[in-house]
């Protein structure tokens, strides 16, 4: 359970000036030949062009990747050096699994709030296509021994220890190191526990595609996206999908953990997020900086909260962190779940969103897990992921945070005055679950 730290004197709120991403590609497809640095540079260059920042020195650029080559140890700084920004712009790498992008944005926002920076960029990138291939442990050890060897015989001896089977590369693994279960298998456990139906999952997936397609149609992404390598829309988007088509797909997760007496497996490729390639960045600044440049502010960062659950002991589902971080965030800010015009819950799986919402709306969960009087609150489904989310857009791990922040900031700017709290600026809530039982959440408010 998360205990909310006592709020300090509220610092300045960081402003979200704008965002940019490249369309997300399907793994092994349009961006198969692009590295993380290529994609992050493309997203950053688009942001620089949109806001006329070429040649300017920013105070900070923070970004990261979940799947990262060892040569990319300084990925973000190298990206800045390859961009049109002034090379005096400092940069650092961040990593918190799928929460990387959002965590990078939190970091930059906090620096701005504290006056340590006036303007910065937060974001992330990931490639499922250009994943590092790892050599076997025996080969790695032999190579290290050979590099330490001082004489030729020693070196030959080190190489002689290598066996043919050691040469086979080790495929990248998406399993949780502590349980050996894949993320999907973990979610399947939670899905079953909350009794999330196949139909509900498929309906959420369909809404994701329909909403994202509609957002493209109305030009919503015209100033949030720079095309890259001939891609102008997210490659996973299926504007023409339907409940019938989704219903035909075979379950891919849950078979391993299903029991004869338990519910059947429900999670398919249609209601699980696809492996993707892509990058996103968000421009944050103080209000003063934005005003000086004549740049309108879309939204402000109100607060953010991370949390983690103990999934190893089976006490809680791997991706259920949101059900803990969100109440903590609400308590600290004195807000209710019903106060938000938009709620963005990252669609790792359709069932992740549905289980998180179910937990927040569940009285028993509120009492036993959170020590509250009852349920946390309710989420109006018509305010949830209104322009689609990861099921349709794809989910290049570290790029998802920036995608959601940019989308939500623009939605809030368009809405301006809240529908649920007339007379006040519209608010939005973000929750991005991550490996290791983690989650990062954030509240934005229309500027």
């Amino acid at each position, binding site marked *: 359970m998360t205990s909310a730290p006592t709020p300090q004197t509220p610092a300045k709120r960081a402003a979200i000036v704008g965002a940019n991403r490249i369309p997300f590609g399907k793994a092994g497809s349009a961006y198969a030949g692009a590295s993380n640095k290529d994609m992050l540079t*493309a997203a950053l*260059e*688009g942001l*620089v*062009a*949109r*806001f*006329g920042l*070429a*040649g300017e020195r920013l105070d900070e650029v923070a970004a990261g990747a979940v799947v990262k080559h060892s040569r990319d140890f300084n990925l973000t700084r190298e990206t800045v050096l390859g961009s*049109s920004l002034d090379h005096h712009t400092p940069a650092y790498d961040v990593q918190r699994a799928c929460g990387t992008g959002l965590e990078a944005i939190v970091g930059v926002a906090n620096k701005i709030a504290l006056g340590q920076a006036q303007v910065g960029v937060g974001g992330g990138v990931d490639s499922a296509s250009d994943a590092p291939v790892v050599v076997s442990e025996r080969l790695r050890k032999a190579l290290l021994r050979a590099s330490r060897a001082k004489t030729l015989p020693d070196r030959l001896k080190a190489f002689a220890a290598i066996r043919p089977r050691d040469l086979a590369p080790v495929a990248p693994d998406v399993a949780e190191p502590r349980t050996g279960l894949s993320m999907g298998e973990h979610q399947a456990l939670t899905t079953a526990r909350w009794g999330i139906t196949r139909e509900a999952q498929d309906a959420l997936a369909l809404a994701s595609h329909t909403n994202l397609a509609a957002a493209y149609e109305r*030009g919503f*992404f*015209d*100033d949030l*996206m*720079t*095309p*890259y*390598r001939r891609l*102008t829309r997210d490659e996973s988007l299926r504007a023409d999908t339907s409940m019938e088509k989704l219903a035909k797909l075979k379950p891919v997760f849950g078979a391993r953990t299903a029991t004869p007496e338990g519910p059947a497996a429900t999670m398919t490729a249609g209601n699980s997020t696809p492996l993707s390639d892509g990058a996103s960045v968000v421009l944050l600044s103080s209000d003063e900086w934005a005003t000086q*440049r*004549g*740049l*309108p502010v879309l939204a402000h960062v109100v607060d953010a909260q991370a949390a983690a659950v103990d999934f190893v002991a089976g006490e809680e589902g791997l991706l259920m962190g949101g059900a803990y971080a969100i109440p903590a965030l609400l308590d600290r800010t004195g807000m209710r779940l019903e106060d938000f015009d938009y709620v963005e819950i990252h669609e790792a799986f359709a069932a992740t969103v549905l289980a998180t919402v179910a937990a927040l709306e569940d009285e028993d969960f509120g009492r036993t897990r959170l020590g509250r009087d009852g349920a946390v609150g309710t989420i109006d489904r018509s305010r949830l992921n209104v322009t689609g989310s990861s099921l349709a857009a794809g989910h290049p791990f570290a790029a998802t945070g920036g995608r959601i922040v940019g989308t939500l900031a623009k939605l809030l700017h368009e809405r301006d005055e809240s529908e649920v709290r007339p007379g006040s600026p519209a608010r939005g809530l973000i929750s991005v679950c991550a490996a290791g039982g983690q989650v990062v959440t954030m509240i934005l408010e229309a500027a």
Partner: protein
Amino acid sequence: MSDTYAKLVGAPGPAQQLAKKLGLPRPARLRRTDPTSVDRPLTPGPVLVLSDDASTADADTVAEGLLAWDLDVHRDARLPDHARWGAVVLVLTELPHPAALSAPAMQLGSVLRSLAPGARVVSLSRRAPGPDATTNLAPAVAAARAGVDGFVRSVAKELRNGATANGVVLADDVDVRAPSVRGALRFFLSARSAFVDGQLLAVVSGAGSEPADWARPLTGVAAVVTGAARGIGAEVVRVLARDGAHVLGVDVPAAGESLTSVMNEVHGVALQLDITAEDAAARILDVARSRYGHLDVVVHNAGILRDKLLANMSAEKFDDLTAVNVTAPLRMNETFARPGVLGSASTAPRVISLASTSGIAGNRGQTNYANAKAGLIGMTRALAGSLTDAGGTVNAVAPGFIETEMTASVPPVPRQVMRWASSLQQGGRPVDVAEAIAFLASPQAGGIDGQVLRVCGQLQTGQ
């Protein structure tokens, strides 16, 4: 996109020898602006100022003005041995009779063989009556003025080695010292006008002002260029930025990747926007005003091709092209060409459209394109004078055959024919069009309004 033939015959070797023997075109390498040394040198050698007897006083004034640009100015056609003229300026502003052109014409003729490569011949004359104008000019004066037109266009066709001949045509009440007369003269003398040949550009008023720095005349100016991601548009962006302007580049969202690299290169701003949207002008204005405080120059460059013989043309092809190439500029001008929208206390409004020689002469397979491009010329003429109160102008540039991705789709033989159909015997480059636009955008072009400047190497079609 490159003219392989021109490259082959442009360098000494068997290809050049063969072309010479067969009498085939041997296009010269044109003198273009070096971005690291803009307008230096302004001309490739000394400048000779000639005039008819009646225009001597004006010629003296013009010569003094040239001296202010540190040019080596002569009034006498004798040159030291082996020296070559960089330019000849013919001052004919008070020409009383066609016969009075004889003396300066013969003087010009005597120096044509000693012109430097990329030299310039520029005439200054007065406006002859137009087809629908009533005039109280004496017929002999009108004949003299109209005669200059035919004379200059013919001289242009006789020049070689990348030399060009153009003219500045002054309205009756415009002094030879007027900013736009000096501005146009300088443009024609400079490398900026490399592909402008056989053109007579009218200065309609004494409006405009000389820039503080002739090499960066657009300092402080905010400009928007549509269709900025590629080809001519991208080059317009670069030249406007080189001349000191802040540039906002607009292109369709799908072209965002190349738009990004063009705009970052010039430290400009990219706006992904479809110009056929109802609110396109308002959004452009909004971005420019918030970033720069004002918007001064609008370059309507965006255009598409949908070539088909009319017999095979679909309504869709015709309508799509019309929507982008002429309806969008018309609609955007309802915002931009309203007095008080463009410009600021220190910068003047400019609306510049990309027409085409296809719009002037017509072109097989381009009924839709020519309709749109000729339409832009009509729009430009209709808007002439509408921004005068704010020191503004509305003009058009009509490119001939320019080497771009768009014209690279023309089949090889017609493409070579198009190149050879101009006096300069080659296609122009996007930068040539961009230079003309940057000139019309400049403060020294404030007296040029409602005009169409061809950048075609004197293409042998149309007017």
